């Protein structure tokens, strides 16, 4: 049995240690935000955070996630109470098919933990490993700028961290 701490909750996992983290999140924990895209760490739709840094969960066996803090998009807010990034993506209508968007948001979250004043070039560079085939890139950029703006304002808890209890 592997003990896995996801979004602040520790759970026992029945899967084999070499099972990709993504399969455990989706299949066993019903956390379906992270998507199976290419299965080879090439497209970014499976991105989640380990210790606040982005990993591609399709190529990370669950044994590597043991004793670490895993955060998925579900950890950044709920449907009823979306987090600032999620609100910004909705406000800018940044999703077309939406398949890549959870990975994009996770990457943006990791970026905004480091800086709340990213330049456009920094945002583009950070999102480089993520593919969107619908072409909503300009809206994604706008959404991340909007979220940064909102997080800069005092109304919002400035920095989410994986270590803290998630907004649920």
């Amino acid at each position, binding site marked *: 049995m592997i003990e896995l701490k996801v979004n602040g909750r520790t759970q026992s996992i029945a899967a084999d240690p070499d099972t990709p983290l993504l399969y455990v999140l989706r299949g066993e924990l019903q956390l379906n935000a992270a998507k199976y895209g290419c299965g080879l*760490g090439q497209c970014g739709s499976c991105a989640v955070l380990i210790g606040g840094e982005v990993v591609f969960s399709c190529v990370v066996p669950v044994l*590597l996630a043991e004793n670490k803090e895993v955060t998925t998009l579900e950890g950044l807010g709920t449907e009823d109470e979306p987090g600032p990034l999620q609100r910004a993506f909705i406000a800018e209508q940044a999703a077309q098919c939406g398949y890549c968007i959870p990975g994009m948001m996770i990457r943006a979250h990791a970026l905004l933990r480091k800086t709340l004043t990213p330049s456009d070039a920094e945002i583009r560079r950070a999102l480089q490993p993520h593919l969107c085939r619908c072409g909503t890139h300009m809206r994604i950029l706008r959404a991340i700028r909007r979220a940064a703006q909102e997080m800069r304002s005092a109304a919002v808890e400035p920095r989410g961290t994986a270590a803290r209890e998630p907004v649920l």
Partner: protein
Amino acid sequence: MRLLKAGGIALGVGLLLIVAGAAGLAAYGWRPAIDPVDPPTGFDPAMVETGAELAAIGNCGTCHTAPGGKPFAGGLALPTPFGTVYSTNITPDPDTGIGRWPEAAFGRAMREGVDRAGRHLYPAFPYDHFTLVSDADNQALYAFLMTRQPVAAKAPANDLPFPLNQRFVLAGWKLLFLQPGPYKPDPAHDAAWNRGAYLAEGLAHCGACHTPRNLFGAEEKDRRFAGGDAEGWHAVPIGSLSPAPVPWTADSLFHYLRDGWHGQHGTAQGPMGPVADSLAAVPEDDVRAIAAYVASVMGLPDAEARKRGDALAAATADPAGPGTRPQSAGSQTVAAAVPAQDPGAAIYAGTCAACHESGRPSPFGGLDLRLSSAIAGDSPANLIRIIRHGVPAASGARGPIMPAFAAALSDRQLETLLAYLRGRFSDRPAWTGLGDAVRAARDGEVAAAAAASH
């Protein structure tokens, strides 16, 4: 008391000698300023074209362009063991670039490492190689640079401790380590070999990374191409000490330098990546000449190494191995079975095998790790780098991508994986001090990031 006095005198004399020596060096190293000119125009387009190719061979743009900055406008932080040096603006901007440099000043900078104002340049600008460049080629390089878009950009001040921040000490360095050119052809070899030697030893400055440096930061001439360290990467030895599991040939070198990858060696990464990018756009004959020269310097592998290489080449030529699936059947592969109780094998199977045992062809499929120089090399530095950071997506260009595993692997897990890869995929002895190497890589990255954000 007398002893004290004698000591005082000795100290005084010593100080005097140091001061006199410094003054002498300053006088010896004095170079006149060359009068500025108005930015010249009217260059011959054919010469500019030649200059563009030469600048690509010299890879000028890589150091003289800051991340996200304008081409040739300088400002890139170059961390050295002595401190950080910033590349300068070599666009023809009259105030912050080389716009007011006459051709003679450019030629002198290349040949002697002295700027227009007569100041000695730091050898981070590899004039110990560029000194070999011919007058005619310097003229073409000058024509190319003077026809670039002028950019107003002043490089940050270098961050070097005393006395290294005193440029006259560089005169002493040059006295010891600079053998002034230009290149003199070796009559014992044909024209193609000499062309290759001229480019590889001169403008292409291969040795700047691939030759180890002494305490003064100068290349150890008697250990040419024995491997060096550059920008957090280990520049592999390219002589008889080459770790390549399948020995290099002039032909494989040519394809590697030209395309940035070779099926038996993998892809050019780290500082070598931009080198191959540049060489994709220069005359093929020049790349062939460089490859042939480097191969001749390497010498032929001994019979044993050749036999091993041939066997390995044959074994890896057929991609049908564990995990192989036809590409049309989708991207998923079945990882090789995990031998129980070996944590390194378990990490490898879950993390690496899906790509590296897929049998998909180079360069987009993962390299068969039996062919990896990073695993077979003396230093684990490159393997650590690649596992931690992967091969990032290149903006606006196609290329292989490997995801980064820095966040997924603890230092301990990374060590376990490194030891497993070394044991399974090479016949070299186990690495020692892996924990230190992993920590050094992490610390080096932090330092480099701090320097870059300076």
